[in-house]
């Protein structure tokens, strides 16, 4: 005999009651002076979850709660329960399963990141029509122009010379740029020496960078690096990847609190940055190959790095930047300059 109380579903009145499982498998419910009996097949325990006390659901909307719930669960262990609940509850409280779940979860995250995301990103990017690429490129350009970006003041002759070299290269390798038509744009972005590739293959180079790189071979090297991004479709890949990562995160930790969401999205950002580092290396290699093929060599490219690095150093004296460190490397969107130069030297051909 198990002591407890009953509710008739729909009414909050608590009625003292007892429940008993007889030897011949009948369930007897005692309330006041009367008793009713049911078959074991007609009663069920509420879903097991953690150590939440379980109640006994009886026919006619009666629910019995025991003063000693563990006694109730033990006695009615044979009452029918949905199989999946039994399984899941078993996993949830089994130490080995929990350790396994942690391991599998971490492994799946790594596997997803390593093996699922890259081909998926390429597939989705290729499936997008070129109108999407153009729309995105235009959008970015408009955003940039809303910043402090103005028409270039670089002498027209220099612009024309660079443009001519750039266009000649693109025409000679037309088949490499299938999704986009590379186009060179000159802009004055006050105080920012930079070159930016947009989704539609447009490459924006700033006056400050042109001022810094006074030799056109150096500029050409930088442009080839950016064309490496266009050739590898890197801009679209990053956008698609960021979207896929955030969708994946939302599905798996959909129930997460806002707090955990913040941490997880910071994680996806870091993941994306390490991908972007790979892209930089790929674009460097592309530029190095082209420079060697045109018998210019990687020397101007290395000089452009050194010049950029020197402006960086003048701006903020920081020792950290040059120290080789695997952790800060992984966090950095661009690999550190020494590392990039070291890699470039591997492309150096024996030249007369």
């Amino acid at each position, binding site marked *: 005999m198990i002591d407890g109380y009953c*509710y*008739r*579903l*729909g*009414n*909050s*009145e*608590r009625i003292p009651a007892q429940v008993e499982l007889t030897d011949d498998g009948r369930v007897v419910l005692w309330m006041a002076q009367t008793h009713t009996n049911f078959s074991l097949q007609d009663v069920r325990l*509420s*879903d097991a*979850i*953690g*150590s*939440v*006390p379980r109640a006994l659901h009886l026919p006619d909307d009666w*629910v019995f*709660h025991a003063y000693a719930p563990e006694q109730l669960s033990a006695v009615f262990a044979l009452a029918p329960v949905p199989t*999946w609940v039994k399984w*899941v509850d078993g*996993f*949830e*409280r*089994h130490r080995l*399963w*929990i350790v396994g*779940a*942690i391991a*599998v*979860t971490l492994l*799946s995250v790594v596997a997803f990141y390593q093996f699922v995301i890259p081909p998926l990103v390429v597939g989705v990017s290729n499936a*997008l029509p070129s109108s*999407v690429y153009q*729309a*995105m490129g235009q*959008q970015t350009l408009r955003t940039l122009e809303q910043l402090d970006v103005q028409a270039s003041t670089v002498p027209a002759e220099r612009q024309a010379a660079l443009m001519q070299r750039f266009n000649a290269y693109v025409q000679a390798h037309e088949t490499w740029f299938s999704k986009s038509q590379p186009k060179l744009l000159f802009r004055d972005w006050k105080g920012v020496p930079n070159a930016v590739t947009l989704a539609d293959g447009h490459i924006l180079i700033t006056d400050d960078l042109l001022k810094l790189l006074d030799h056109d071979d150096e500029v050409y090297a930088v442009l080839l690096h950016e064309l490496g991004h266009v050739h590898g479709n890197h801009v679209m890949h990053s*956008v*698609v990847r960021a*979207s896929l990562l*955030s*969708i994946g995160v*939302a*599905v*798996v*930790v*959909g*129930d*997460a*609190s*806002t*707090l*955990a*969401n913040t*941490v*997880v999205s910071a*994680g996806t950002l870091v993941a994306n940055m390490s991908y972007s580092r790979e892209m930089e290396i790929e674009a460097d290699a592309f530029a190095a190959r082209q420079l060697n093929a045109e018998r210019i060599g990687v020397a101007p490219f290395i000089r452009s790095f050194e010049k950029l690095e020197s402006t960086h150093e003048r701006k*903020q004296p920081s020792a950290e930047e040059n120290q080789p460190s695997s952790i800060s490397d992984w966090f950095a969107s661009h690999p550190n300059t020494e590392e990039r130069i070291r890699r470039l030297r591997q492309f150096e051909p024996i030249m007369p």
Partner: protein
Amino acid sequence: MKNAFQFHGRGGEYFGIWIVNILLTIVTLGLYNPWAHVRNKQYFYGNTELAGERFEYLATGKQIFLGRLIAGILFVAYISLSNSMPIVSGAIFLFVMVAFPWVVQRSLRFNAVMTRYRGVRFGFVGTIKDAYVNFLGKPILAYVIAALWVSGVVFVLGIMGVAISQPKDLLSGISLIVLVVLILTLFAFVQMFAWVNQGIASYIHNGYLYGEHVFSAQLETKQFDKIYWSGAKVAVVFVLIAAAIMGGLIYAFKSGTQMFALVPLAGLGLYIGMFAVMLYVRALVYAKIRNYTYGQTLIGAERAYAFESNIMPSDYAVLLFTNTLMVIFSLGLLTPFVRVRIAEFLAKHTAIQGDLDALVTQEQAGVQTGATADALSDVFNLDIQF
């Protein structure tokens, strides 16, 4: 007689449920998500005790599957199109915004009906019309009023400023005007924010039903206003201090002293300070609003049963801060412990006054449900709760 809520969940125990939820969600490529949601809810409801009885969560995974599917498709479409086709994703956003009050009403009702205490399910009787008034109408109106107010202020002060100032000190005249405009703008926005949130809180706190007892709460915009100002004050003081520090640094930088070595340090300090202040303001406003709205809430019209919430803002801020550190430094693995800590804290500071054993009530017939909207509200992370 005071009945405090109690939470019995334990982080270690919940960890198993949480990690198995994640595992099964991964293994089923996301299909387990609704069932994971149900297991979570069952755990937190089942471990919440009031006057000797636990709460129950009644929804099944099957019930919320379809809703989550629709929500998921909308979400995926929104995310993946937001970069490439802003027009389509904008249309989705607009659609969700217009449907939002309907979703909120359905979601509040679904969650209420799926909650049972002492054999009786809760209900929600707030109407869809009122949901549109409070979740869409008032916010839009508030924006319009605030915008008109600000442009009016700019216009009038602009004319005045130009009229009274000599060409020479036009600049100081303009900066004075900008300052006045900023203060009046802040004033307008706090006022509008209070007005909108009073409406939303009233809608929710007057909509619930337990048996035949309707919840009621007399909420005043003035009180919301006061609470938001107390938060705004902290933020403004921080901004002023930060501006003073930045000003000092810029001055030191320009005068060419060795002080510039301090710039990164000060930057980091300000960044951490900003994070801490934001967290504190959030905790302060949340605690005060919760204390006030719960304190006004009665079950039934007569003052037989009254809610009480007594969160100390600083305690809550410390909880949020330590929780953030726990999640960050465990790479998310301590999330289950964090959730249990929050549930424990909120339960401990919530109570109902009155003899609950005497509350005998009958569930009202015709409580309907709609699982789709519930799931929608969840995936777009609208945190609507009582």
